[in-house]
């Protein structure tokens, strides 16, 4: 099996706030991330697709097609957006790296038809990232 990884970057704003918490509890649990004015990151997303290369093309998948999918599904959805207000898939969730990666996995997994989505790694910063990996139960969490 071969794994192919494509990388992209998007910049977005967010803050953490749970409406069921008191103001004090939001500050205690989320620290500086609870600032209601928001703050931003340059997120880096690595998308890995695994499969056997097609014997005729030598490719697991057409990278141009993957690039188009990522542009449509990730860049247009999240780049230069406020994740608390502008991404419906994150409604009702705290837009942490864990939740963003989970949303991206659910969006991307059914769209990869050549090979299968093996891993997505989302960096919020160089010292914090989340890995989503396939666990063999397609479509499940």
């Amino acid at each position, binding site marked *: 099996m071969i794994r192919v990884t494509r990388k992209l970057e998007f910049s977005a704003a967010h803050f*953490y706030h*749970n409406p*069921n*918490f008191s103001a004090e509890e939001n500050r205690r*649990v*989320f*620290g500086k991330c609870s600032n209601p004015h928001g703050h931003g990151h340059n997120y880096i997303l690595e998308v890995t697709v695994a499969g056997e290369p097609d014997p005729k093309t030598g490719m697991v998948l057409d990278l141009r097609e993957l690039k188009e999918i990522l542009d449509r599904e990730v860049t247009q959805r999240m780049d230069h957006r406020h994740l608390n207000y502008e991404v419906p898939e994150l409604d009702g*969730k*705290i*837009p*942490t*790296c*864990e*939740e963003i*990666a*989970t949303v991206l*996995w*659910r969006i991307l*997994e059914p769209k990869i038809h050549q090979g299968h989505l093996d891993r997505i790694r989302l960096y919020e910063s*160089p*010292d*914090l*990232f*989340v*890995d*989503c*990996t*396939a*666990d063999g*139960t397609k479509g*499940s*969490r």
Partner: protein
Amino acid sequence: MKLSLWRRYSFPASHRLFRAEWSAEHNERVFGKCANPYSHGHNYALEVGVTGPVDPATGMIANLTDLDSFVREKVLDAFDHTYMNEQIPEFRECVPTTENVCRVIFQRLAGFSHARVEGVRIEETGKNSFEYTAPSNL
């Protein structure tokens, strides 16, 4: 789908690779420059991965404040700016190769109560990295 959260830290430390029961020549042959009796050091980059359910109230596998303070207490405060051969008790019993540093750090972190520690990855230099994964994942 499986989710894990990784956090990156760093600590400078020194070590020397040798076995006291071996001759200087034998140590030199096996460990090369790393056997230098005066020791040498690295800026170790440490990545710690944890896994578990995402708490819907916080969106988190583990709060970074909890993870950071646990890693600081169990590892960084103990390893930072030390000569590991003499100042980390585990290395009285084994050679402080980065393979063993990974294993020792993993064992020190195993008691984290907020999530399961899935793995430890260490870059000894920009060219060498080592990863230890929880046995159930192998």
